[in-house]
């Protein structure tokens, strides 16, 4: 397919920075609406034929994600600690971004998630806030995302979900043994399991083939295009409009702003390492909850000496990570969990925060045993067992096909000092300040993860597991995340937020941010549906009103 090419000196209508879950949607929707778009992605443009079942390359050698040896980051728990070089954030680094390699859980946030501060009250030590929009505002765009991209699920099967205007476009994926056992255990306990809504197509949809159940969903790219990534489900349509140019291997280092306070374009390193200044009438940053604030902070100018959008010092703050532990169970018969999609059953019975528990928060739980072979050998057995040698080797072979598990997706509170900032000593491979992560869980994050772990074990025991154990490495304070949320919060008050309710940066009239960074709360993780709904909403409003939101 031939693709339009724009000249850097010609101002296009929009530059999209980062072609991930949100950026892919923006590229498609804006170009379809008639705008001329240049979409920049720091990673390569891979296609289905490039994806392989290569666990070592993908899982252990940053095959599809940011490479900590190039996209260097540093970590500290609090501002008082020295930041040390270690990987703290992981994101999809390719056209399609995280939507290519995510596990595909596609949960809508609940109506209460948007007004938890009003319902639950303040939480000491955290900054829990209401969103400036409601579930009802976002509902049409959840539906749009589900139907445009292709989501499989059973509408109405989760009694805790908000109202839906349409069912899912595709029936749920076939249930696996882990889902059957999860449902068995949960129903014995009086809970309400439901088929997992997944961004994988259970039947042929819009010219894409149905899932072949090969089992390589989480962390991998889909080799048949059945995963509803923006790579498969949005980018081809954007290119087809003849108004969108995709530029992979393009690393943006600065958004330029003029004296009038408007952005004029972006400076990026092209695949040969040369600097290019691409002009645009407006810029949409979709670079994820870690790289978006970093780029704003690197975009200093006379008009914005502290970086773009940072007049009140809010850029990078209130970072939220994904919490929640794994529980595993051993069963008498083979489940063969290495086949097909990861999670086929979910429950939201413990989702809502309940003051009676004595702490804020809750979580969703799904059924899964998502270890690939090497990862399983590395960390899949109980920690108090031998971890090498003949006995260990024998147990690995007995357990791998006979295990089920559950994963909790727990709340994580927004805390001001948890943040993305620029490291003042360490540089990345391009000589730019390394991304510095400051993160320490709020005590309630840990309490809710422990609470959910006990519920997870109960479900596995009720399902008939003959042995149940917690993966202790997934409990306790977390220092690493794939879900990067908060960091450029949405809000009506410019003094305490970065973007307004339309995802426009408060003090820059033609700069928009849409990705995990604008989330005010992380609900119970699984943010992709909400990120994409926000992107569809922003694109729709830009189409209606031009760049004057």
């Amino acid at each position, binding site marked *: 397919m031939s693709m339009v090419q724009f000249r850097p000196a010609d101002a296009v209508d929009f530059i999209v920075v980062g072609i991930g879950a949100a950026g892919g949607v923006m590229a498609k929707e804006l170009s379809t609406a008639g705008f001329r778009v240049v979409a920049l992605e720091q990673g390569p443009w891979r296609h289905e*034929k490039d994806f392989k079942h*290569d*666990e*070592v390359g993908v899982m*252990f*050698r940053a095959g599809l994600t940011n490479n900590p*040896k190039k996209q260097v980051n540093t970590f500290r728990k609090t501002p008082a600690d020295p930041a040390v070089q270690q990987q703290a954030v992981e994101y999809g680094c390719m056209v399609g971004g995280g939507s290519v390699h995510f596990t595909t859980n596609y949960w809508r946030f609940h109506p209460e998630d948007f007004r938890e501060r009003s319902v639950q009250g303040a939480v000491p030590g955290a900054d829990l806030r209401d969103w400036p929009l409601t579930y009802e505002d976002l509902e049409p765009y959840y539906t749009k995302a589900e139907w445009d991209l292709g989501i499989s699920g059973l509408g109405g099967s989760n009694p805790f979900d908000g109202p839906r205007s349409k069912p899912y476009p595709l029936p749920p994926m*076939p*249930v*696996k*043994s*882990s*889902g*059957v*056992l999860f*449902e*068995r255990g949960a129903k014995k306990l009086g809970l309400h399991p439901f088929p997992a809504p997944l961004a994988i197509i259970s039947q042929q949809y819009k010219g894409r083939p149905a899932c*072949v*159940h*090969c*089992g390589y969903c989480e962390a991998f790219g889909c*080799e048949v295009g059945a995963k509803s990534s923006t790579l498969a489900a949005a980018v081809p349509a954007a290119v087809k409009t003849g108004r969108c140019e995709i530029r992979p291997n393009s690393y943006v280092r600065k958004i330029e702003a003029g004296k009038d306070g408007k952005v004029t374009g972006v400076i990026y390193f092209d695949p040969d390492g040369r600097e290019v200044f691409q002009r645009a009438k407006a810029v949409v940053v979709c670079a994820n909850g870690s790289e978006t604030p970093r780029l704003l902070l690197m975009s200093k100018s006379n008009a914005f000496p502290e970086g773009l959008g940072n007049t009140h010092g809010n850029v990078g703050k209130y970072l939220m990570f994904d919490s929640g532990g794994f529980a595993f169970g051993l*069963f008498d*018969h*083979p*489940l*063969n*969990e*290495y*086949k*097909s999609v990861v999670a086929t059953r979910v429950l939201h019975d413990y989702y809502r925060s309940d003051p009676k528990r004595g702490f804020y928060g809750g979580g969703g739980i799904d059924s899964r045993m998502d270890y690939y*072979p*090497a990862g*399983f*050998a*590395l960390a899949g057995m109980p920690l108090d067992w031998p*971890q*090498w*040698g*003949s006995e260990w*080797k024998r147990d*690995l*072979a007995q357990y*791998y*096909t006979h295990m089920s598990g559950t994963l909790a997706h727990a709340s994580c509170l927004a805390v001001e000092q948890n943040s993305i900032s620029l490291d003042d000593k360490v540089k990345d491979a391009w000589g730019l300040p390394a991304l510095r992560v400051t993160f320490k869980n709020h005590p309630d994050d840990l309490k809710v993860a422990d609470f959910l772990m006990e519920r997870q074990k109960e479900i596995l025991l009720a399902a008939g597991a003959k042995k149940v154990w917690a993966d202790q490495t997934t409990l306790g304070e977390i220092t690493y995340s794939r879900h990067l949320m908060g960091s450029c919060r949405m809000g009506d008050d410019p003094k305490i937020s970065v973007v307004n309710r339309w995802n426009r940066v408060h003090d820059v009239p033609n700069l928009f941010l849409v990705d995990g960074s604008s989330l005010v709360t992380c609900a119970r993780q699984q943010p992709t549906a909400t990120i994409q709904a926000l992107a569809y909403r922003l694109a729709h409003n830009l189409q209606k009103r031009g760049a004057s939101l």
Partner: protein
Amino acid sequence: MNITRREWALAAACWAEVARAQTNQSNLFAWFNPADAAEIKAIACQIIPDDNTPGADAADVILFIDRSLAGFDQDKQDLYQHGLAETEAKRAELFPGSTSIASLPDSQKITLLKAIEKTDFFQQVRLHTILGFFGQPMGSKFLGVQHQMHFEPPFGYYDAEAPK
């Protein structure tokens, strides 16, 4: 699947290197010297023994470790050098008169590795050994994985319990 000329050329070159490594023992390693390789191999073969089923030896894990240290994990070379030196010192302390890890009887190898199993060096060798064995079909087949690109339900024993 479309395979380009360049991909064929690369694949051919890669296989040529493996064939050369397997036939020309003097050029076996890209980074290790043969003596160190024998010591690391002795450790890897305790982590995943070739007992009644194939292990680290059958899978040529030592070649995977060698190529890793010559490539993606170059930054782990120092850890291997220092870690091996410290492990040799520990061996001499535990078993005076011994000359190498590889020449220890299995029971003494296990004693030695239990003494160092918390070290960064051992954990790194364990990681590399696991990747070299379980990251390829010999290892996943050992776990009971069928290698197919396409499965159909039922996937497991309990699927049948699901309501139709």
